[in-house]
């Protein structure tokens, strides 16, 4: 007595929601599974303005984009399984889905994996002390839970995301004592954001790394190794930005093959121009297909959606090709604007479709 659906989308973040619209607006029945209590993924706590988005989206703040993406699904054949997770796979190809009370099989004609990204750790002596959290956790605490995680903070890392959150923490009254970057320049590419950080008076240190943290039961001090000397900051909060990597477990279980591209976050499933993996019923969308910006995440969701529509014969091959090539052009513009090396890595990754580094992991 399995639950059945045309298309199962694992992850109801921006990529999953964008794919769902392409599918459901053409009459396919979609089921979205997400572990959170609400759809929208990480957008829900993003208060920063997101400027470069694919048509039809105007620049807007993250939480507003989450609302826009869910609102347009309201009248369409979309079923949400919120508070649910994919925990495995049955022998007949059904996906095992669980909430707190039950495990049940879900049979789908096609699957879109939109599991997103996970933040990477930044290890140093005593990095496991309470008060040391990821930059994403800090953003969730202030913008979703309205909790200030500390009074005096150091930010380790300087990606666009880290700079966004540093400014948001400062806005809610956290005293940011330093932004520490291991490389010789700040990593953030958005010039406007970097200018904002410079204007805020927050000290930034490049060629710098955390030497160690100290504290009794929670973080109290942090030593930062600069090129010439070590400085000590008294803090109750340290936010780590170690970059992000694709979440792979679902694709691993589904038997997809994998490749490796540093610029896309390391290991990631192989896919072709259709965003289709080597398991022909399994498609990819969003950061699970390589770490990028929100606009690119939406575009990949749309491409995957169009490809699944084509595979289920809801649209013809010619129309699918036309839509896809327009979306790829848009994606290229969105990605190359700030991250040309990521776009190049994506092209290399797709070229490697037939030569994965890891495949057939279940044939022992």
């Amino acid at each position, binding site marked *: 007595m399995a639950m059945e659906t045309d298309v199962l989308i694992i992850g109801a973040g921006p990529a999953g929601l964008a794919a769902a619209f392409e599918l459901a607006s053409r009459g396919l029945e979609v089921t979205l599974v997400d572990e959170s209590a609400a759809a929208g993924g990480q957008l829900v706590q993003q208060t920063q303005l997101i400027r470069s988005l694919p048509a039809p989206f105007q620049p807007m703040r993250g939480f507003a984009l989450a609302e826009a993406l869910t609102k347009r699904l309201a009248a369409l054949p979309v079923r949400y399984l919120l508070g649910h997770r994919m925990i495995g796979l*049955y022998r007949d190809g059904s996906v095992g889905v669980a909430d707190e009370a039950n495990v049940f099989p879900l049979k789908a004609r096609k699957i879109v994996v939109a599991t997103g990204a996970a933040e990477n750790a930044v290890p140093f002596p005593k990095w496991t002390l309470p008060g040391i959290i990821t930059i994403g956790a800090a953003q969730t605490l202030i913008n979703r839970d309205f909790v200030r995680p500390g009074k005096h903070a150091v930010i380790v890392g300087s990606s666009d995301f880290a700079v966004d959150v540093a400014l948001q923490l400062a806005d809610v009254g956290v005293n940011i004592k330093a932004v520490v970057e291991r490389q010789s320049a700040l990593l953030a590419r958005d010039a406007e954001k970097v200018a904002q950080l410079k204007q805020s008076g927050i000290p930034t240190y490049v060629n710098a790394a955390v030497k160690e943290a100290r504290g009794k039961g929670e973080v109290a001090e942090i030593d930062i190794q600069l090129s010439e000397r070590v400085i000590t900051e008294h803090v109750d909060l340290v936010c780590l930005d170690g970059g992000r990597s694709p979440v792979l477990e679902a694709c691993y279980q589904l038997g997809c093959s994998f490749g490796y591209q540093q610029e896309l976050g390391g290991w990631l499933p192989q896919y072709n121009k259709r965003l289709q993996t080597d398991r022909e019923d399994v498609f990819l969308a969003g950061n699970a297909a390589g770490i990028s910006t929100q606009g690119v995440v939406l575009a990949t969701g749309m491409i995957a959606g169009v490809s699944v529509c084509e595979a289920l014969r809801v649209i013809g091959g010619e129309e699918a090709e036309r839509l896809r090539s327009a979306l790829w052009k848009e994606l290229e513009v969105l990605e190359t604007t700030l991250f040309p090396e990521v776009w190049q890595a994506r092209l290399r990754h797709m070229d490697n479709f037939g030569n994965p580094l890891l495949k057939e992991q279940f044939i022992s």
Partner: protein
Amino acid sequence: MLDQATIICRCEEISYEEVAEVIRYGARTFDDVKRLTRCGMGPCQAKICMSLVAQVIHAETGRALPEIPLPRMRMPLSPIKLETLATNRTSFSAVKSVLDEVEPEEGMR
């Protein structure tokens, strides 16, 4: 910056030193390290330490990151109460990836 005492696996409190030691014994993959140290066997199921262990293997052996394979990602993909599994009517043992490694008992379908 890492030193010998830096924790690599938070869940099981495995240090850099302990991971480096089993690499000296010949461990070359995450699963090798896991079997020798319990690294990655805690509640997070290697979600945090997977890339850190790869970095240690790279630092200690010079192996490039793409040559350090992913760990085997088994069911269940995220923690689940035994109660949830046990009270369900659907035979959970009919799962492909488990069958892949153990012989199914009679009547399990």
